Each structure stands twice: as C-alpha cells, then as structure tokens.
C-alpha cells in the first residue's frame, strides 16, 4: 500500500497543477488585455498565483514563494480596484507570468533561479502600485510564517483539491478477517492531507472491555486531488466489514463538527466511566492533524483562515473557473499514464491492423465468398479494428492550446526586443493533435512567429504611413480540415516584397536573372536554404536559415507549408499536417513491379493517359492535358529509378497529385491495387533519408511497401521526365 516516495508523487502533481494554474493565469491576462474581463477574471488570476504560492510554500520552494507573493500583492491591488490596467501594464503582468513559468520550471528541475533576471520585472511591477521596495521586502519576510496558514484556507480549494468527509466505523469482523484500520488510515494519508478524528465514546471500563470488539470509529477530512474511486479503493478489502460514508464537501470551510460536544457528553458511558473532572484530562475526542512525512506543513487553528475568507463566493467561483469537477457523485476520473505505455499500445494496434489485413488477404485467397458469414464477420472485425485505432489515437491527442500559449510568449518577447507593438490572436485552441506532433511543432512554429514579428510586420512608422494601426497583429489558428490539421500563422504586415525577394535570389544565384517566376514561385524562394531578406541580421529570427529548416521540420512530420501573401495586407503561412504519425490512408499502387503506397490526401483524382491528351515538351518530357490545363507527367517507376521511361504511356493509369501550394503533377503508375489504411513504419532511423520516400509499411501479405512522400518526390523529380511548374511557365 505504501508507494516508494509519496512526497515525490505529490510534488509531481503540484507541478502538473502549476501548469494548469499558469494556463488559467495566461487566459485571464489575455482576457483582461482584450477587454473581455470581469471582476472574476482578475480573481482567477489572483487565485492562480496564490495557489502556486501556497503549494510552493508547502514544498519549501522559497524562490517561487517569494516571486509569487510579490506578484500576487500587485494583483491584489488590481483586484481591489486600486490599480487599473492599461495595455502596457497587462503586458508587464504577462511578462511576470512568463517569469513565474520559468521559476516553476526551475523549481521542478531543481535549478536555481537567477534573481537578477527576475528582480527588474518585479520592481517594474511594483512600481505600478507605487509600493516602496523596502516595504515589500519586509512583507515577504513577514509573510513566511503565514504561508501555510493561508494555504490551509485557500490552498486546498485553489489547488483544485477536493475535501471529503469520510466516516469509517469498523465492525468486529474486520479485525477477525485480518484487516487493520491503521493501514487504511495510513493509505488515506497518502492520498492527500488528512485530519483524523477518533471517536472514543464507546470505550468502556477495562472490566467490561471486550478486547476483540470494535469500539472505535473515525471521521477523516481528506483534501486530495485524487478521484473519489481512489478513496473507495482504500476500503476495497473491508467492504461489508465496516460502515463507511464518503461525502464530498462543497465549500472549504470546515463544518462546525456538530458531534463534538455530543460525544464528549456521551451519556451512555457516563454511569461507570470517567468523572467530569477527568474528562478534561482525557477528552473523548482527540484531534490530530496528520501530515505526510516530509511535508513541511504546519497547522494553525483552522478557524482563523476560514473566517477570513468569503467562503461561498469562493466556492462558487471555483466551480465556474476550475476544471468542471462535475457533481459530487461523479467526479471526472482521469488517469495519468506513461507515454511509453501509450506508445506500446499504439504499436500493438498497428500490429493488429497489419494482422487484420493479413487475415483479410488469407480469407480472400481461400476463395471464401463475400456473403459468407466468415467474410461478414471479418468486415465487422475490420470496423472494430478501425474504431480501436481511432480511440487509441485519441488518447494521444491534445489540444494545441499549450503550444499556442508558448507562442504567445514568443510574440511578447520578440516584439519587446524589436520594440514593435504586436497583438497575437489565436483561434481554434481546442483543436486536438497528436502529442508527438505538438511537441515537434514547437520549434518550427517559434521560428515562424519570430519571422512574422521581425520580417512580416512593418515598423510602427511604416504602419501608420500605410494607414494601419500602430499595433501589428499576428493570427495563429488551428483547425481540422479533411483529415488533416491546418495551422496558420498570419500577419497583417506589408506582405512579401516580391521584387526584393527576386533581387536577393538573383544576387545569390538562386534564380537566373530574367527567369520568369509566378507569385507563388517567388514566395517559395523564401524556403530555399540560405535565403534571407533581412538587410541586417537580427539575433531574433536567425541568420536567414530559418524557413528552409521550418519546411524541413514540417515535411518530416508528413506536412506541407504553403505561403500566401498580399502586398500591403500581410502574409500567411499555412501548415497542413496529418492528424497522427502512426497511420495513413493510402492508395496501394504498383510501379515497375514494386508495390508502393501513395498518401490518399495528395491524390485528387485518377485518370487514364490518352494519346490525345499528352503533349511532348522538350526532349524528354511530356505534359498531360487535364481539362483546361497542362500538368507535368511523371513516371513513378522512372522517378524512383526502377526503370527507364516507356515509349508509350497511352492507357496508363495516372494519379493526379496536388500539393498544398497548388502544384499539380500527373503520376503514372502501372496498376492501382486498393485504397486502405496503412501503419507507418519509419525509415529515418534505420535507413536515413530516402528521396521521394516518407516511410514504409507492411501489407496484408507481409510484404514491405514504401510510402511515397509526394512533396519530396515532386520537388526532387529529376529524371528524364522532369517537369516543374516553373519550367512550364517559362515554356508557356
């Protein structure tokens, strides 16, 4: 029943809670900044900081307590209506929130926080209230002993803990069956903070004592962030051997213990038990506060903090602002699971999908008719497999909100260092994406945001000149679109200066002078390695190596980046990503005897090549007429080096591929086998980069098939049938 280190666990959950509180703080500050705040918003911010302080105090994290205290003091001024916040002040509060975030991280990782980095922001913050620094210092010192008494009243609720009143009366049989309340009480203590009361009323004189009877009962007040079922689990083995009541207390003010005087006067045993004067020396109810070993928590009389607090308002506020904790009977049960275990499950499900494909193939090969029960059951099995797969993927899905909040900080920091005023608008924060995708998006997105602030947005003077507001706006949005996630970073800056881009590209020899380029081709130059438009290298958005690295990172995620830009109006980068890195809907095709998988998302339609639709272009290449336009024709077998071009492609199967940026190509394959979901098995680790290939998969017959990377294939198409839309434009 005893976990190896309960304190470490509690500490870990404190930091998880900190993340939630910091998120709430950020949300609140953003609302205040947007003018969408009410009194409660400020309260939420205050409570978030206060709760962090409370928890930090319990764990002796002095740096955190000190900062949170001074931050909270200023927030309290706002709360009390003595300090009004303008935009700059809110920015300052946000910066302080960023520092708070850093200190929390440092405390978590046991890293010392550099006070010199913290102090200036704190001073600036305190200057808002005109509070003298000496006073503050004193207050902090004064504050120390109070930490926990405050925490006692507010912390329990603020940190999202729930209070339970547990009444536990063992029956005689409980002991007889080898159970012992001591272990149960100890286990409860490991779930959170407990206050245990033992009711001694039934203890008789020794001469009347039945030593093996059950005479004691307990009332335990438990403050915990654990789910109710975890509490119930503690009593699992004594079910039916005791009377048990578990009640969730809604407010945090302690009920006035109505049975306290009653029991102390228990009339039943007055006859032969203690005389009244002795009652004082041996009070029938003794109350002890039980804290976990190691917790530096000290208790103060609970009446003091409770009476200071407007309990009902607070409690109701909590129900609105904290995570929806549901009704007392059904608190939302969550489980923290190691990512490793989930990975294992995902892999197993992948194997299941492959296995099911093999089974389907065997059934088909056995010549079992489609309307036989076996085939029908298999159909159901396939559906079930798909459902399982979707559910497993959902476990890893997380809203992009945390990622967006990190970006908000990037905007704040980069705009501050460039002296630009920038507002970040986010949209679709609840869009869920695979956790691994989110993690790997942080770097490219950071780069894009910095680029947008640095290069995308004009200086304040230019903006005013152009009739725009001085404050630039960057929009970050996420949405699900046809089985993919689309994340957009847009700015309302001057748009891409295509003349300049072109000039630089020519100067650097990236394009030939006089070569005609479409607008999107010009924009795409930004993604070329070594391209930089910034006249001076700023330390902010790197040395112009950014965008090609960004594109590479996105492509590694199976995604595509696309730019649209309107002069004077702004630029928008759109990233389109697969929802997960584990499975893919693909079309299984054959080229030069090899089985390959083409991601379904990139295929617009399938056609048949006919003489009348094909036109020769140059010495080695042809284009295919698709309705009103010509599309370069690529032979997949040739592109991958499996064979030489065929003399005649009449009657060949063609996949019309469209990339995110609108580039289209006609890809010739020999045969289309089927359309199905495949499990992605990475090649990067074992083989490294293979041109035109994204990954591999295992098909139903056990054969390994390569999964194409259309973006890479089309951009690196360099065989005899090489056609690029740029060349086409020149030719046309």
């Amino acid at each position, binding site marked *: 029943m005893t976990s190896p280190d309960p304190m470490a666990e509690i500490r870990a959950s404190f930091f998880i809670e900190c993340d939630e509180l910091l998120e709430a703080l950020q949300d609140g500050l953003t609302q205040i900044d947007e003018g969408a705040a009410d009194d409660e918003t400020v309260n939420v911010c205050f409570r978030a900081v206060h709760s962090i302080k409370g928890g930090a105090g319990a764990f002796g994290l002095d740096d955190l307590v000190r900062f949170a205290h001074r931050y909270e003091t200023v927030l309290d001024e706002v709360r009390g209506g003595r300090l009004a916040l303008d935009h700059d002040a809110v920015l300052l509060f946000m910066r302080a929130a960023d520092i708070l975030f850093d200190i929390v991280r440092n405390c978590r990782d046991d890293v010392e926080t550099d006070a010199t980095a913290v102090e200036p922001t704190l001073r600036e913050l305190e200057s808002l209230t005109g509070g003298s620094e000496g006073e503050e210092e004193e207050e902090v010192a004064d504050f120390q002993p109070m930490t926990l008494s405050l925490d006692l009243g507010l912390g329990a609720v603020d940190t999202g803990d729930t209070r339970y009143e547990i009444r536990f009366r063992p029956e005689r049989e409980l002991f007889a069956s080898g159970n012992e*309340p001591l272990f149960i009480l100890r286990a409860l203590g490991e779930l959170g903070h407990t206050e245990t009361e033992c009711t001694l009323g039934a203890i008789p004189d020794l001469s009347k004592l039945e030593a093996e009877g059950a005479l004691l009962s307990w009332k335990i007040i438990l403050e915990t962030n654990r789910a109710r079922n975890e509490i119930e689990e503690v009593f699992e083995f004594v079910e039916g051997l005791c009377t048990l009541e578990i009640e969730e207390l809604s407010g945090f003010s302690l009920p006035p213990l109505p049975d306290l005087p009653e029991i102390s006067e228990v009339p039943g045993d007055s006859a032969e038990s203690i005389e009244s004067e002795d009652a004082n020396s041996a009070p029938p109810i003794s109350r002890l506060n039980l804290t976990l070993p190691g917790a530096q928590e000290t208790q103060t009389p609970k009446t003091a903090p409770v009476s200071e607090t407007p309990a009902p308002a607070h409690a109701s506020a909590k129900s609105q602002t904290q995570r929806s904790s549901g009704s007392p009977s059904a608190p939302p049960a969550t489980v923290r699971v190691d990512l490793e275990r989930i990975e294992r499950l995902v892999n197993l499900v992948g194997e299941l999908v492959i296995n099911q494909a093999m089974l389907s193939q065997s059934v088909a090969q056995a010549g079992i008719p489609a309307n036989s029960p076996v085939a029908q059951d298999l159909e159901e099995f396939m559906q079930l497999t798909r459902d399982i797969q979707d559910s497993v993927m959902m476990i890893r899905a997380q809203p992009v909100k945390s990622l967006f909040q990190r970006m908000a900080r990037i905007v704040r920091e980069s705009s501050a260092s460039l002296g630009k005023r920038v507002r970040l608008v986010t949209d679709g924060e609840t869009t869920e994406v695979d956790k691994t995708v989110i993690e790997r998006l942080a770097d490219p997105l950071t780069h894009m945001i910095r680029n947008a602030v640095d290069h995308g947005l004009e200086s304040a003077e230019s903006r005013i000149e152009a009739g725009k507001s001085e404050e630039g706006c960057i929009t970050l949005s996420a949405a699900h679109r046809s089985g993919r996630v689309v994340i957009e970073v847009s700015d309302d800056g001057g748009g891409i200066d295509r003349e300049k881009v072109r000039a630089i590209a020519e100067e650097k020899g990236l394009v030939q002078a006089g070569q005609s380029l479409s607008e999107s081709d010009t924009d795409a130059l930004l993604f070329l390695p070594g391209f930089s438009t910034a006249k001076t290298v700023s330390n902010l958005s790197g040395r112009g190596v950014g965008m090609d690295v960004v594109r590479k990172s996105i492509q590694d995620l199976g995604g595509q980046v696309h730019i649209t830009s309107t002069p004077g109006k702004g630029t928008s980068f759109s990233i389109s990503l697969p929802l997960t890195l584990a499975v893919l809907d693909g079309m299984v095709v054959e080229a030069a005897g090899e089985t390959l998988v083409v991601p379904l998302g990139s295929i617009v339609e399938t056609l048949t090549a006919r003489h009348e639709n094909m036109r020769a272009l140059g010495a080695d290449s042809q284009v295919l007429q698709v309705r009103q336009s010509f599309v370069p024709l690529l032979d997949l077998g040739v592109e991958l080096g499996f064979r030489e071009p065929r003399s005649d492609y009449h009657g060949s199967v063609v996949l019309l591929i469209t990339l995110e940026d609108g580039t289209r190509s006609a890809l010739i394959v020999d045969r289309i086998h089927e359309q199905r979901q495949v499990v992605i098995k990475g090649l990067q680790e074992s083989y490294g980069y293979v041109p035109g290939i994204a990954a591999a998969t295992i098909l139903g017959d056990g054969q390994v098939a390569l999964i194409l990377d259309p973006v890479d294939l089309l951009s690196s198409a360099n065989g005899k049938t090489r056609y690029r839309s740029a060349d086409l434009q020149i030719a046309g």
Partner: protein
Amino acid sequence: MSAELALPARLDLPAATPLAEAITALRGQDLRMSAEAVTHLGTPGLQVLLSAARSWAADGKSFSLQPCSEAFTEQLSIFGIDSAALSAPGREV
C-alpha cells in the same frame, strides 16, 4: 504502590486479550507502561490501552505510557489519538 509494564512489540488482535488481562491484574496501582518496544499498534491493542487509561482515570490512579517508540507515536497520530487520551494524572490523595 506503583507498577510497571513493558508492552510487547505487536499490539494486534491476538495480543489484545492477554494485554487486557495483564493490565487488569495491575489495577488499583499507579501504572507506568513502556511502549519502547512497540512496532505495531493495532486497533484492538489501542482499544485496550484507551480503556485502561479511562479505568485508571476513574480510579484516580496515574497511568502513563513512557517511553514510547517512534513507531508507536507515529501510529498513534495516524489513528488521530492525542497522547493525552492515554494518560491519567492520578488523584492527589
């Protein structure tokens, strides 16, 4: 007259009745018990000690538990029992 009694290591269910008998045998005297050796304090054992403390208090005899092992003190606090409940000062006669 005063008596002393050393408590065994385990005060669990099997130990409860013998303990009650041993303590009952010392009734009428001031009693000092040593809980120094106690490693496990079970509810049945605790009940005997609580009852004894009450009985001694009713008799006006002093009842004390000294010294106590760390385990004993810790387990007492888990039970939510104040050590005062396990002592009786005795009445000045």
